[in-house]
């Protein structure tokens, strides 16, 4: 994948080309397109987890819950002193390991001597089991980065070149929203192109009911039900 750095000014120029709108004071103002670009980047990151980042925390003795650093939107993996930890759900721990929050690496018995599992309590909260009894050890979080914020025309964003087309499709669609009517309806094709490209990047997206409805993915299944009502009588 060929990565490139695109400035906001370059990105905006590409969006203007897409919209066929050449002037800064035209129907779409520069400031408006800047905001559309920012919205598109954030939406893309939400759907595809495109930007990733690593953050390191220092553990506190006997502490199970940690606040996720503000540079991370969502944790994807966690490691403790270089040992990868296993992701589990709150439900798994609560009902599979009752009392887990009170267990530390010094508890003994069948409790491991280093943290083995992590749990996502919310986007701002990660828990570990067992808690580190000693503290001051390294907890490394790999997660989805907060979407880059383009504050000036010179601000750069890392993007794969192949991502630009689908992002331009999205920008065109967002820009058409204010027109409403037929123009907006026609832009749905661009939105679907964007969604399809996002779905290629993130398989979880394809499980979303809203996503599937937009792309009409379930229409074929609905028109050809697996079970056909049987008639009564001889076959």
């Amino acid at each position, binding site marked *: 994948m060929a990565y490139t750095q695109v400035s906001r000014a370059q990105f905006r120029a590409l969006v203007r080309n897409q919209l066929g709108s050449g002037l800064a*004071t035209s129907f779409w*103002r520069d*400031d*408006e397109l800047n*905001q559309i670009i920012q*919205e598109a980047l*954030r*939406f893309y*990151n*939400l*759907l595809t*987890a495109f930007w990733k980042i690593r953050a390191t925390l220092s553990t506190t003795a006997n502490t199970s*819950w940690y*606040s996720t650093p*503000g540079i991370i*939107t*969502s944790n994807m993996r966690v490691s403790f002193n270089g040992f990868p930890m296993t*992701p589990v*759900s*709150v439900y798994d721990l*609560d*009902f599979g390991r*009752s*009392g887990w*929050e*009170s*267990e530390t690496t010094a508890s003994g018995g069948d409790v491991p001597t280093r943290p083995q599992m992590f749990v*996502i*309590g*919310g*986007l*701002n*909260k990660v828990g570990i089991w067992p808690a580190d009894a000693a503290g001051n050890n390294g907890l490394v979080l790999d997660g*989805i980065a*907060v*979407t880059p*914020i383009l504050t000036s025309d010179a601000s750069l964003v890392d993007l794969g070149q192949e991502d630009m087309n689908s992002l331009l499709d999205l920008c065109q669609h967002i820009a058409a*929203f*204010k027109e*409403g009517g037929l123009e*907006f*309806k026609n832009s749905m094709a661009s939105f679907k192109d964007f969604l399809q490209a996002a779905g290629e990047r993130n398989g*979880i*997206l394809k*499980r*979303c*009911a*809203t*996503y599937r*409805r*937009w792309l009409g993915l379930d229409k074929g299944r609905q028109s050809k039900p697996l079970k056909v009502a049987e008639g009564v009588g001889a076959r």
Partner: protein
Amino acid sequence: MAWTILDTKPTWNVTDQQLVARAAYALLENGNFDATGTTFVFGQFAVQEFLDNANLIQERLMKDCAPVVLRATQATTGGQARYALPQDWIHTRRMTWQAQTAGSKAKSLASTDSYQLDHGLLDWERNVADPSVYNEGSDLPTLTVEIAKAPSQAGTLGMLYVPQPVTLDGTGVKLTVPDELESGVFYGTIGELLSSEGEGYDDERAEYCEQRYQLCAEMANALIMGAEAPQQNG
């Protein structure tokens, strides 16, 4: 007795004024100028109307996905089953109870309701024990939680809960939800405006906005729960 909130509400980067500016463009309320983030030029919609709806939508998103949680604890007394919830409580993500006795562990409580209690734990109102369930059902007063059975000894309730977001008032307040969920708040709010009675009524775009909100909520759930996120039926 009051809850001790162990965390502060996180804030990310998107401000209410940025949302207002974005809405001014989307609703053609900027006139022939750059949007200021504080005014709508034509007055088809009011900025306050936008902010009121943005607050409702952000709260709805918090309840639908629990993207942001806080931890809180409260001391419990032997024999007392009911406790007030924090004032900014929206939804309980999990609850634990730990006896004061040295060496006891914080055990998670399962969510239940009074019907299940009445039919599955017949003596729950009369006897005491280590609590195993909590009830926030509709038979309780507002902002009250009941643990069952009532604890037989002093202890500590622990809670991971979804708080009310910080109120957006148009002065540059940052959203309580992460930047990536901005589109959920924005389109949810615009959808409310476009579906309200008035000259700006546009059911087609309002429906689109609702779908954008739903997609955002589904993806937020996926971020929190990974591949096990339940699909929403639509």
